[in-house]
């Protein structure tokens, strides 16, 4: 049975790889076509790294939410906290944020695939 933590870092690594490869590819394409490196290109690169940082933050938030939802489930099981509503709210929060994360990951992978399919 897959450990959830492995999934989160797996997603993290996958996305980092995808983003880095995209950035690398743009570098190669620019210099091989002989066109001068435009100043705006560097801005794009920092936008990418900002996006990566934002996604990194989001991933750790999702991980925290998953942690607290697991904790509240454990409390419910061991009888420490019998309040079902708090458990449900924690689990629902974690679930929605996780679904958003997975959606973002899928979009990025899709975008990468489309980029790979582009005729140059």
């Amino acid at each position, binding site marked *: 049975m897959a450990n959830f933590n492995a999934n989160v870092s797996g997603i993290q690594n996958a996305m980092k790889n995808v983003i880095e490869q995209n950035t690398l590819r743009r570098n190669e394409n620019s210099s091989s076509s002989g066109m001068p490196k435009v100043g705006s290109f560097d801005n794009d690169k920092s936008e990418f790294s900002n996006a990566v940082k934002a996604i990194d933050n989001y991933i750790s938030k999702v991980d925290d939410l998953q942690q607290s939802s697991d904790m509240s489930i454990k409390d419910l099981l061991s009888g420490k906290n019998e309040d079902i509503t708090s*458990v449900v709210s924690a689990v629902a929060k974690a679930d929605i944020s996780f*679904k958003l994360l997975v959606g973002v990951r*899928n979009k990025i992978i899709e975008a990468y695939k489309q980029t790979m399919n582009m005729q140059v």
Partner: protein
Amino acid sequence: MSSTNGITDLLNAGLKAENLRQKTIANNIANLETPEYRRIDVKFEELLERSLGSSGSVDLSEIEPVIYRPQKTPVKSNGNDVNLESEVGQMVKNTLRHTAYIRLLSKKYKQIELAIDVE
């Protein structure tokens, strides 16, 4: 921060315990008027809490839900200590917990499916 038991294993153990508890409640209600009969219950939450508290992780083979006689309720004149309203209350709680565990398990499995599917 990896736990030795995924939350799904704990939820499954909880489900087992609630199923057992359902049987003990039915037995109690059936013996409402039996002389010298004392009500039975299932010990699971305390065992789990004790295990979790000491190490934070749990060896589930040590925690089996076990049937026991609380011997705490007052005894009527015929030696019987079963109270119908109390058993009904226990039944309501048992049903709610059971439903909660099942839904939580289902949510967890769906999350794993989501993470696996790329399409």
